[in-house]
């Protein structure tokens, strides 16, 4: 993968948000739900900001305690996985000027390879109507549509 390559979130099929330090991603086409904690969250943030792969790696190197080669290999592998899942696609638009990498400003954190936690059994549950279809005991138990309230 070229370091100059850039990706973008595969909107509108894919939506995401940063919730309490963790990125939550949903592929609306498949119904799959993903959780991106820690380093994965930083990589996703970089993709959303339109940064190149090289720039994302540079930022990670500045933020985490590990050798650059380890970080780059892990980051590239993770980006390949994101692409394979259809969460990101190559961005062929003209790149904007990237801001300078942030280095040495804060305490560097311990590095753990980024993980993509995938939940492919959420589709039905995501569609549960919280007003009418959730039973009151042992939540979450979905009340069958034909079961009287």
């Amino acid at each position, binding site marked *: 993968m070229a370091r100059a390559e850039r990706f973008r979130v595969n909107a509108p099929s894919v939506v995401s*948000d940063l919730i309490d330090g963790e990125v939550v991603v949903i592929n609306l086409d498949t119904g799959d739900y993903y959780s991106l904690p820690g380093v994965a969250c930083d990589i996703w943030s970089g993709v959303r900001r339109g940064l190149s792969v090289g720039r994302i790696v540079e930022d990670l190197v500045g933020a985490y305690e590990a050798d650059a080669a380890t970080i780059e290999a892990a980051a590239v592998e993770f980006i390949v996985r994101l692409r394979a899942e259809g969460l990101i696609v190559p961005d062929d638009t003209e790149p904007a000027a990237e801001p300078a990498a942030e280095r040495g400003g804060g305490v560097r954190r311990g590095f753990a390879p980024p993980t993509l936690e995938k939940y492919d059994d959420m589709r039905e549950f995501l569609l549960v109507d*919280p007003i009418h279809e959730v039973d*009151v005991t*042992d939540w979450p138990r979905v009340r069958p549509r034909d079961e009287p309230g």
Partner: protein
Amino acid sequence: MDWRIRKFGGPWPSPHEELLLRAALGQGPEASRALAEWEADFDPRRIDHETLVLLPLLDRNLRAHGIASRFAGTYGSVYRWSWSRNQVLFAALGQVLRRLHEAKVATMLMKGAALSRSVYGDLGARAMGDCDLLVPPAQVDQAERVLREAGFAPVLPLGAGLFRTHHSAAFRDPVGREIDLHWHVLTEDIGPGADDGFWAAAEPLAWDGATTSTLCPADHLLLIVTHGALGGLNTAPVYWIADAVVLLRRYAGTMSWTRLYEQARERRLGLTVTRALDYLAARFDVPFGGDARADFAMGPVSAGERVEHWLKVRNAAGSPLGNLPRYWFTYTRLCRREGRAPSAIGFYRFVKDHRLVDRWTFARRALLWPARQLVWLVTQLLRLRGSGTRAPGRLGGPGRVDARGGLSARPRPGLAEAGDDGAR
């Protein structure tokens, strides 16, 4: 003053629900205290509807104020679920809005979807069952075609009777997402011209590249309050309070109180609005209209409006008359809009069409009605003798302790039978 009408159900929250609302809407120490008190009686394995729809807002509020909780994981999970579910709903809604825009159908978003964007500013904090989409009555047929093309089918068969006697109809796509297609804003006020004022004051709302609109803040508050305080049987009795409080805080300085009270008075909903705002002001310290409120309070309230309010907030569905009083008041408003006098035969047709039954089914039910009421009366008497206390209404209140000692679900009309909260 005791704002609750516990033994009759009604729109006011129980003390436990009110603690949850304070934890979800309060700030700093107030929210912390309410949370601690509420959690003392909270079992995460048994979450009722009213609690469930407020947990995302609670989670957001606790995070915003840095309040720790031993159930933070549960709240966070529910928030993520709410956010995710809303994303799934909004994706479908966006497609429908774009198609409707291309078909030149005017649209307006109301309640949950609109409030998420315009008031909450957070797509996960407001849990919702469906998306409420209003179109002009003259464009309902076009909107129905567009919805069908987008994969949505009506939950109940559509027809002239339903169109005349309801304010909305639910549409569902194959994966279960629902859009409630409205042709009127309020359940209580339907008929020609009922929404002209709402359309005239609507405000633009950006929605993922689609052009749409939403009710102005005063009209939205009117809808929230009447939907909550007079709402259908499947209206959770707490989230209308959260919606109203968040909206009042968001538009505290710009709310047109005069418009709110004028609209309420014109629709014979003034008493409901003032009672609801009195409650909110007393319990949640929100503004409620100042001089406009005082001027309005001095205005006349008809006996009919008083009776309607009294019956509805006391959950009249638990009485032998069932929903008939509710239908009657909606029918009289409809007659006024149609320029005709209410009549017995007209009311019969209204009820038959509203219930979506043919005349024979209607006649059979009418004949069985006295027997059913007798059974109900005997049951109540037996329960009175057994417990020595006054029995609750047939439906009881929302989220109340049921006979098994667990929290009971708020009943809702079955899908095969139209209720009052839209034809679904």
